[in-house]
């Protein structure tokens, strides 16, 4: 077999996060010679999904003083609440480090379909969105209000007044045509203002309905602009029903984007890409038209382009995340929205801005994704909860509080028990793609809670650059199936 050093690689890709993996798929299937490396011994980088054992090693690795904080994750810790019993064996879990829901109308899904990679991924429905309601008196329990998801839903919702319903329906009809000329005139003067102000002024929506609309945007600071907010609500509404009744978004089974990254890498390998995990770049020498890389495996390889993530400069921005395993099926969260809808495996709960703080302290929203055992991320009878909020000095406290409030709101005999909690922070890192000679630095993983199509653009740009001399019919991420079969039948009895 040819040694790695004998080949002049077209591109060496460093890291197997979703972005790098999609790039490897597109380039290798378009005939480029790709060497794909990851310093970790697992796939997925910041999008990885880890077993409890791997999580433990991961926490140890990123908090080890000998490891400089060059990656996006920090401040991680694992807590196992006292007296908690029922945690299964470590491999029964697959915890996603940065879970995102994917709207049906997403470029990512169309690229997975056109590249035929989607057939190896199992997609599950994301169901209801809820808004957390604090108790109005100290004796009451907090509750979860389901955001109505269809027109019929809005009308049958007893907690919304008739007048408010009319405002909401009017707004939703407006969004469906928000790019139309007459509608543009209405919102463009408010484009950069806050969506909540626009909803109030233009549609007379009260605080409750404003909270519903903002929850659907999954805006991390809750202060989303009118322009961005309308685009996201438009995507949500037009995604609803696209792949079946009663859901607007999907989630890949077994750990979300990690699964797509792995499938993309496999497709890259089918296209001829060579894979090495647990292999870091130790030294890098730039020559005139190639880069020489010294790998931790001892290999020295040459490439025409290196695609990687820059070392991050942490300015303190980013998100704080908590992953909790709870002993409960949380059945009430996973009801199908309409008849004939697939059983959802993911539910979203929003804690609006200001709700979680102590007595009036303004706080950022907290979003909680509840994943049922259908996601394959935990054993039957348990759920995995993923909580995210903007990173501040108090965010850990707020996530704990939100988790506790959420568990109290569940209408079961007793409060569901948390068996395991993982806390960590994810720095924002680089936002822009940056080319410097023969090195292309990709932006760091997006912190968005729903997949952001704009994160696909840097990979397309690299592909176009590499394929600039290719025949015009080469199309980005459009590839035929690579399975081989014949009609001959064989009998076994």
């Amino acid at each position: 077999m040819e040694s790695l050093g004998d080949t002049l690689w077209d591109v060496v890709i460093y890291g197997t996060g979703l972005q790098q993996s999609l790039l490897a798929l597109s380039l290798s299937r378009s005939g480029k010679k790709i060497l794909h490396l990851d310093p970790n011994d697992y796939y997925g980088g910041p999008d990885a999904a880890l077993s409890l054992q791997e999580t433990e090693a991961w926490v140890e690795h990123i908090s080890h003083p000998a490891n400089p904080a060059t990656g996006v994750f920090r401040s991680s810790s694992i807590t196992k609440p006292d007296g908690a019993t029922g945690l299964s064996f470590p491999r029964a879990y697959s915890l996603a480090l940065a879970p995102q829901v994917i709207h049906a109308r997403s470029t990512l899904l169309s690229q997975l379909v056109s590249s035929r990679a989607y057939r190896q991924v199992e997609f599950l429905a994301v169901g209801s969105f809820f808004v957390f309601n604090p108790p109005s008196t100290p004796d009451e329990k907090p509750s979860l209000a389901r955001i109505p998801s269809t027109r019929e839903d809005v009308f049958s919702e007893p907690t919304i007044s008739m007048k408010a319903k009319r405002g909401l329906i009017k707004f939703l009809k407006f969004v469906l045509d928000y790019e139309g000329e007459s509608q543009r005139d209405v919102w463009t003067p408010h484009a950069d203002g806050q969506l909540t102000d626009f909803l109030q002024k233009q549609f007379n929506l009260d605080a409750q309905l404003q909270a519903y609309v903002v929850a659907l945007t999954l805006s991390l600071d809750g202060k989303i602009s009118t322009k961005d907010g309308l685009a996201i609500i438009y995507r949500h509404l037009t995604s609803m029903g696209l792949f079946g009744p009663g859901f607007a978004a999907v989630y890949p089974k077994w750990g979300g984007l990690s699964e797509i990254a792995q499938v993309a890498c496999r497709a890259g390998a089918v296209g001829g890409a060579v894979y090495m995990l647990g292999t870091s770049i130790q030294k890098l020498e730039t020559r005139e038209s190639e880069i020489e890389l010294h790998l931790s495996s001892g290999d020295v390889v040459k490439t025409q382009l290196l695609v990687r993530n820059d070392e991050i400069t942490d300015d303190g921005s980013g998100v704080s995340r908590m992953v909790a395993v709870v002993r409960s099926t949380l059945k009430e969260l996973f009801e199908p929205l309409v008849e004939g809808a697939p059983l959802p495996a993911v539910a979203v709960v929003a804690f609006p801005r200001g709700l979680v703080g102590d007595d009036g302290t303004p706080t950022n929203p907290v979003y909680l994704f509840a994943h049922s055992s259908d996601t394959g991320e935990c054993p039957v009878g348990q759920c995995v909860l993923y909580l995210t909020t903007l990173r501040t000095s108090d965010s850990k406290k707020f996530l704990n509080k939100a988790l506790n409030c959420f568990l109290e709101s569940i209408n079961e005999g007793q409060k569901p028990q948390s068996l395991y909690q993982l806390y960590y922070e994810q720095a924002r890192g680089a936002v822009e793609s940056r080319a410097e000679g023969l090195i292309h630095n990709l932006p760091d993983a997006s912190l968005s809670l729903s997949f952001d199509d704009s994160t696909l653009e840097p990979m397309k740009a690299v592909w176009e650059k590499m394929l600039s001399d290719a025949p015009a019919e080469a199309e980005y991420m459009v590839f035929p199936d690579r399975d081989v079969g014949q009609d001959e039948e064989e009998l076994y009895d």
Partner: protein
Amino acid sequence: MECEDALPTIKILLIGSSGVGKSALLQRYCDDKFDPEASAATIGIDFQVRKMTIGGKPYRVNLFDTAGQERFRTLSTSFYRGSHGVLLVYDISNRATFLAMERWFLEVETNTTEDIALHLVGTKLDKAAQGREVSTEEGCALAKKHGALFSEVSSLTRENVRKPFADVINQIMQTPALAASIHGGRPPGTVTLGGDGGGGSWGCAC
């Protein structure tokens, strides 16, 4: 295509060190071809499809090769998902590939369910007379230790080539938990991208 996808589908993997002849075995089994020059690492094929009638019912068998990801042992957990059977392949004329099998068994055990049908395959049986480095007894003992069936085959001479596939399919069908997990089309509870949609949409609100 639609109805073909709806056939109950069995997923079988072939794993083992580079150069042991996984692809040659697959090609001999599926196309009855053997190409002595094709020793380059496998690229270009995602999986081979074989239609079969088992017990009077039609099935589709998807046979997955490693696509070169065995070279640096980078097969992903997603590769193993949903597999019903695994052929663990070594070369009887290369002892190192046999010694590597313990790690491959371990990888299978970590990534699959305990019911999975396993079959240990020693290839290049045509070299038995001159170049054998692993005895049949050793192969048999290793298979037994891991609860796997065992065969030695030659893709060059066709000897025994069908046996590992027939045995592993047979074992899958005889294992209730595995047989029950064979389904057609999309796995239950999952969503089909590009489905017809309809219902519950805001789009038809007016």
